């Protein structure tokens, strides 16, 4: 019972944050709504017994990625967005596409699991289990992802450095 209440509360909070993210006109408010979404997701992970994933969700997403978002918004001093009526393409294709997509996902979920539910805390989520899975069963995907991230980092370094101005001695 307690689990259900906690689940419903944070599920609702998560959805409210997501809606607020879209409704807010100021980028900072939107970013903070996203932090709320991440935080409530972390609590839902905790309820499932995935404590490590929950902690990483908070440390990495809420504590680092979103801080960088806020940092960039602050740096650019982005002001309020102007509300437009939205493009016709988005209205024509976006909404039906979203409906079809969510229906598809829902259908697959129901097909695959039927009326089964996962008991709270039933999933293996201890750090030891996660580490074992990552470095045994999913070693190749894990390493491929690391290389992907490495490429992204190198790309960022190349884009950010200015070889023609930085190469010699520093100016000034």
């Amino acid at each position: 019972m307690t689990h259900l209440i906690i689940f419903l509360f944070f599920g609702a909070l998560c959805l409210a944050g997501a809606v607020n993210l879209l409704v807010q006109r100021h980028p900072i408010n939107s970013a903070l709504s996203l932090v709320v979404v991440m935080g409530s997701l972390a609590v839902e992970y905790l309820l499932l017994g995935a404590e490590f994933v929950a902690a990483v969700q908070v440390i990495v997403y809420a504590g680092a990625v979103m801080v960088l978002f806020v940092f960039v918004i602050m740096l650019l001093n982005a002001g309020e967005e102007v509300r437009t009526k939205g493009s016709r393409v988005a209205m024509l294709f976006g909404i039906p596409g979203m409906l079809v997509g969510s229906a598809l996902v829902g259908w697959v979920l129901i097909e695959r699991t039927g009326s089964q539910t996962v008991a709270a805390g039933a999933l293996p989520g201890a750090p030891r289990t996660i580490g074992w899975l990552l470095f045994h069963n999913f070693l190749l995907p894990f390493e491929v992802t690391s290389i992907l991230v490495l490429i992204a980092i190198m790309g960022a370094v190349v884009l950010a450095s200015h070889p023609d101005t930085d190469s010699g001695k520093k100016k000034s």
Partner: protein
Amino acid sequence: MQERGRDDLTSVGGPVLSAVEGTRALLRNNALNITTFIIVSLIKTVLALFVLLTAVAYTVWLERKVVGHMQNRWGPTRVGPFGLLQPLADGVKFLFKEDLTPPHVYKPLYIAAPMIAVIFALTSIAVIPVGNSITLGSLHIPLQITDVNIGLLIILGVTSLGVYGVALAGWSSNSKYSLLGGLRASAQMISYEISLGLSLVGVLMLTGSFSLRDIVDTQGGTFWGFIPRWNIFYGGQFIAFFIYLISAYAETNRIPFDLPEAETELVAGYHTEYSAMKFAMFFMAEYANMITVAAVASLLFLGGWHGPVVGPPILRALLPVFWFVLRIFGFLFVYIWVRGTLPRFRYDQLMAFGWKFLLPLAIANLLVTALVVALRA
């Protein structure tokens, strides 16, 4: 229904549930009812917060006194003996000062920012154990508000959220000094969080647990006859210890890493536009964070509350707490000592030091520790 509940509990891994399970075990062992448990928890929480806030106030006093003596001054002397009542006077002053709200600030975040800072700074105390446990009659009370099996991760998570307070304060004040302070704070805290996290992984590998209580328990006893089995000695984590200490100074925005509030260039940095209690909240958050950092360093590297224990049972229960507090006090003193000694980094030096020196060193330490752990196993 009863059966189902039992099943749920046997397959648990989550801290919420392990807390529930722990609570039930506690209740079973002590034949207690839930009311007693809630009352005990409430008392522990209130007591911990009271002690923490008092400690925060007196750390400020300690800092003024110690820095004063280092600079050949007396520090506070007027209010009470040795100026001991100065924190009270300061508190009253903060309460009665005019609470200014400058024009053109973004009000919701301007008001929320100090609260965010202080809430996250005070939250970490919930998982920090301060000693073994005390027995009152039939009641067996662990000296910790709650023991979760990912305690360390929770502390890291909560501290990583604390940066929002500083960043949002800087942005919402709508002042160039505040904005620069906020920007510096977020960049600095993200950069140093990486080496801070990596410096802790060595200890985690040696212990194999995220629970702070487990980490302390493995550090009991001595080796080679007399050297305590603390992680800094036995695990060879002294490099990690210094990486942690340096990164923690940067995380708490203290000299020599106090660029977010560098008063010579930014007036007061991110809290330039704050006054009265809102300013005091940033102050409290900074000192509470210092205490958390000192507590984590003691628990992870210096054996937590281990130390010589003698005497009657009540003394045996309370002496570990004393040893733990003594370590925290030592760390706070070093904090103040460093503040009285070192000049501030330049911004490029700060970034270069963090990324080009501390981070590679932390990674190297991690690799060596992993090798040692693998060879020992």
